[in-house]
């Protein structure tokens, strides 16, 4: 599973930490990519950062969900 985290200048570290915690909590194997390129963001339909995309599907835009909610989403995506 590929998780893409779209970030721009503010608040990156907290977002990365939250995603990592969610992956650990869900216990699913996942690869986390951090994307900061504006064009890639635009093509993915990201309009505000931070945004989270799981296997190409945008699940959060503008904020990183609570770790528990994100872990739930990851678990669902793994099935």
């Amino acid at each position: 599973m590929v998780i893409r985290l779209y970030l721009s200048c503010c608040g990156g570290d907290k977002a990365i930490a939250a995603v990592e915690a969610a992956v650990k909590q869900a216990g699913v194997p996942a690869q986390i990519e951090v994307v900061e390129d504006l064009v890639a963001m635009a093509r993915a339909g990201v309009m505000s950062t931070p945004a989270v995309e799981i296997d190409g599907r945008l699940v959060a835009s503008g904020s990183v969900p609570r770790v528990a909610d994100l872990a739930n989403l990851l678990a669902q995506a793994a099935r």
Partner: protein
Amino acid sequence: MSGSSTEVAGPAGPLADKRPARCCPLPVQVLLGLVAWILVYSQLDRFARWCSYEVLGLARGGHLGGAVEFFVADAPKVLLLLVLITFIVGITRTFLTPERIRELLVGRKGIIGYLFAAILGVPTPFCSCSAIPLFLGFLQSGIPLGVTMSFLISCPVVNEVALALLYGMYGWKIAGLYAALGVAKAVVSGLLIARMQPERFLEPLAAALQPQGAEAAKALPQVASVRLTWDDRLDSGLSSVRETLAGVWLYLVGGIALGAAIYGYIPVPFISRFMGEQAWWNVPVAVLLGLPLYASAAGVMPIVQAVLAKGAALGTALAFMMSVIGISIPELVMLRKVIKMPLIWLFVGLVALGIVIVGYLFNLLL
């Protein structure tokens, strides 16, 4: 009010909803908070006078007395207003996401598009970082560049923080006029920009993202929307408050200290000579001074209040405030990635011109 959840990463297993236990439901906490807010706010002036004159025994009408009274009354007032308005807007924004705004703007023809864009810009904050993805997102869905610019102009200037503070200090007429003029300015600026074929000033990376046909505009990835409960929305409001306070408190304290100093120590003739009604060139100078400076609305407001109390003309003071919060160099640097210089100059020039006009209008009307 508790509102933050501390998540502990535990072992994988049945994932129950890990919301923290609360002593009472969030809506009740919020209600109690509001009641407390009203109580504190209404008592502040009396408290400040008591502090300054009874407790510290300062002379009425003296410099230090005035400064302390100002500081004790206004610092908490400004903070309280800020908390309230940020909370309300935080909740509003869970309804008005960038995606929703885009939906509302796509396909609107004519002036209505610009009007919508300017009005929607009011509750939207302008984080310099998120501005670019938003800009590109609008561009991709075929929203005209002029409309997008109207939005970008309205965001920082007609700013919920400024509105709340103006309302709290000068009443709804002034706040309403500020909002109306700001929206009008955003609409007119957007229309003017549209007349100048602004697309030619897009940087290549932005220009390439424009939809090639009517169909391309529709086929944008949608966010798999998570259903938000009211608890989520209230939580979002509370975290907006926390974030704003964290980002703003330093500016606020600095601004209030400076404001208190101005109020207490700089004599009236000095201020009114520079910012009072007499000199006609005050407004443009105030705007020019404010453009390269940047502070959040909360930070500059106490200074504005102080100079107003000392005889500055309202239009001049507001013009200064609008230009300080309206344009920031970091914002322009970010925009430069997607827009070429001529359009940036046009953007700044129109915003500045609009502010000057608003400044003169306020001076004339009041």
